[in-house]
């Protein structure tokens, strides 16, 4: 396989991941609940793992693989922490506008 085709594959993969990032970001903005946002954040983390792997390939630096490894290892902790908050009711997770603080 020649060099041009290789870089074309990398560009195509990067564009696909960019589109995925965009879709997940729209879900973060839209919500409607905290749980939906946390799931979209988790999705962004997974895309981040893939993007770090791709960066290793594009840059030729093996350090990016270590980053992917690290994110894959600890990326779920944020989701677990948020799940705890949501289950305890510290964050409102259902639809609707957040409740206003009334004295």
């Amino acid at each position, binding site marked *: 396989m020649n060099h041009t085709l290789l870089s074309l594959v990398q560009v195509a993969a990067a564009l696909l991941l960019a589109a995925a990032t965009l*879709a997940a970001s729209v879900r973060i903005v839209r919500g409607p609940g905290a749980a939906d946002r946390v799931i979209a954040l988790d*999705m962004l983390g997974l895309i981040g793992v893939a993007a770090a*792997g791709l960066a*290793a390939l594009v840059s030729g630096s093996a350090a990016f693989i270590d980053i992917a490894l690290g994110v894959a290892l600890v990326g779920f902790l944020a989701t677990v922490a948020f799940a705890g908050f949501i289950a305890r009711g510290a964050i409102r997770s*259902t639809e609707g506008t957040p409740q206003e603080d009334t004295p």
Partner: protein
Amino acid sequence: MNTWIGTLLLLGGAVLCLFAAIGVLRLPDFFMRMHAATKAGVAGSGLVLLGVAAFDGSASTWIKAGLAVLFLLLTTPVAGHLIGRAGYVSGAPLWRGTHEDALQGLLGRASPTPSIAPASAPVRRVVLMLAEGPHADHAIAQAVQLAREQGAELCGMALIDLPRLQNVGPVPIGAGWHAQGMRERRIAQARQGAAGVIQRFEAAARRASLAWSTQLAEGRPSTALRQHCHADDLLLAGADAWFDHGVLDLRPDVAARLGWTGRHPVRVLRGARPA
């Protein structure tokens, strides 16, 4: 050979990542989104990592990529399980096509539709929907008084229900021209009626020396309301009137027909019928 396998894995993984993200964006309820993110997301990222390792080919990269995939497979189900449980317990709504809730009665669940209207939400604007009808003048007087009490801006919103006015029923063959004339006459009459109410509203608002405005919208009333009004608006309507302005003599339940979902429900004003 390795590069072809790498290309396949890399592109396949990236496409799966995109599918997962589209699923997170488009699926209708929280649980389906979680399912898309965890399953397809892990498969996508894992394939991309394996593809990178296939390109590189060195043992250390294979080991690192393999470890990363292993960790993804170990950790994401944990996160997915916990967030799914948290979503269920906190009352994330199920899609309305859901047939069976297997956790019903097994797991406590907060009310899926919490009240979104704090009782003391301030009214930013009092919107009177102007419609020619038996209680129109009473409604205008009430709206002026309410706006003064709340210290809110007063807005007169004249709507003309074009779809309803244009609906003349089944038209026999050859009567298209007549039907068209009928539609135009009805709309002209309704506009005249609306203009009359707007004039009376403007006179009353000017006398009251409040901040006020008027707005005219033609089309489906519920759509027009959603475009022009905010959740903080208090909506008022005169009883026994619709936005045909008396042309068709419709008397529907205004509040129900508008489908308004703001913080303050539509208040229907009914005064003494003028003699």
